[in-house]
């Protein structure tokens, strides 16, 4: 089992969610974050003064998926979140030992 984490632009959440649903993903967890990567280093003017701004708002999407689906899920997310501009975000995948559905106590793939 894999945990796929995507840090994306907030306004792309909708598209990513729709794409995942269409792909057949049955659940996800979303939270707010900030970050920077290549995108950093732009300046901002406010009230006549200039500032360097680092951290930009992002949305973090986490999806638990079966081993075999993982690559496809990643592709789906990347495609849906892409604008081609810096700040598009990162996706990574981590191995998961076990998943449990709290309601039933089911484990593994059935818990998804």
């Amino acid at each position: 089992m894999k945990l796929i984490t995507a840090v994306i632009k907030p306004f792309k959440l909708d598209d990513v969610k729709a794409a995942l649903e269409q792909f057949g993903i049955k659940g996800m967890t979303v939270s707010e974050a900030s970050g920077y990567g290549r995108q950093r280093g732009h300046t901002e003017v406010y009230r006549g003064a200039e500032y360097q701004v680092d951290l930009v708002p992002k949305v973090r999407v986490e999806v638990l998926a079966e081993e075999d689906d993982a690559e496809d899920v990643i592709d789906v997310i990347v495609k849906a979140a892409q604008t081609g501009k810096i700040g598009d975000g990162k996706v990574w995948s981590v191995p998961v030992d076990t998943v449990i559905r709290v309601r039933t106590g089911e484990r593994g793939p059935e818990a998804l």
Partner: protein
Amino acid sequence: MKIDTGTTAWMITATALVLLMTPGLAFFYGGMTRAKSVLNMMMMSFVSIITVTLTWVLYGHSLAFDAFGDGDNVINKIIGGGDALGLQSLIDTATKDDGTGMPNLVFSAFQLTFAIITVALISGAIADRAKFGAWVVFGIAWATLVYFPVAHWVWGGGWLAGLGIEDFAGGTVVHVNAGAAGLALAFVLGKRTGWRKDPMRPHNLTLVLLGVGLLWFGWFGFNAGSELAVDGTAGLAFMNTQVATAAAAGAWILVEKLRDGHSTTLGVASGAVAGLVAITPACGFVDPWAALVLGLVAGAVCAYAVGLKYRFGFDDSLDVVGVHLVGGAIGAVSLGLIARYPFADGQNEGLIYGGPISQLGVQVLGPVAVGLYSFIMAYVIGKIIDKTMGFRIEQEDEVTGIDITTHAETGYDLGTVHSSGVASVNGPVSAAQAKKVDA
């Protein structure tokens, strides 16, 4: 110049109260939008204070309240004259010669605040998606071509006044007028991205209630102040305002409770505004029991009327039509039935007090005529703006949030982390940045 100090004391106060209503409206409207567009929503109200004040001083007062020529001509039925351009002629003159009036500048300031809020009211129909510059231009044009003339028609000695229309504090001039313009703009701008798909619920209901609190408070200046004197009628207008508002708020949340299973905060807020709107034209003309009934009717009807936009498919975002157009019309028409204390020449009691059906006719004609005129003019002005400078922002800017893309600010930055470079862990940082990144 002789004036009555008591009357003037109250009218100065009333003017300040009505002015406060526009910030109140900004909070009411601002709280109802999503967090990403609260600033733009409030800015539309605040900039209306600017545009209308400046046009009022330059020529608005004259168009609305000066008589054209000697006043006894056909042009004066439509529009006022130009004696008070720049307001210079009002200095050191009073509304009445017998010493029972107030300085003309106080009267002018009082009327100015009505013009301001009428323009600001319209903005509720186009939340989240209007170009700021376009809104500024629209406000100036609509005030000039619609509000000033219509105020003249009803209160400045124009044709509706001649017909004996009863509109104590602006059910027709303010609410029907603004509501119809809002409807027109909702068509001109089209629906918000995601409308009917996202709930688009109010992002801050404490702000909504703050707005309602200030509106209610200020509305006493609006309604009781419209008597332009301190007397029994002012007291009646005050009490009726309170009674109708409470009744309407109660009716609205009762409808909600019965229909949806719960009474909401937005319901109390909307119901109160619906009551205030409906009693506006009627407050000095009716008995307290009639105000109570009017409030109940307005609250219940408007609770349903705000659903109309879904049926007819126009995105009147913050219910300008359902509350102001419908509520204002209810109040205006009701006077044909329940008016009991007409005071001007040509005004009559309502049907149930034996008044003539013609009064009911005028009470219907007024809102219809004003509503149609305002709708058509707003639509035309809106379309011209849309074709020239454009009235709607880009969709990507709308989805990202109009606050950050238009005003380069976000309403809130409540994150606990504010170390260097972390302007906000939770919120967009700046349009400048957004621009540079996304473009």
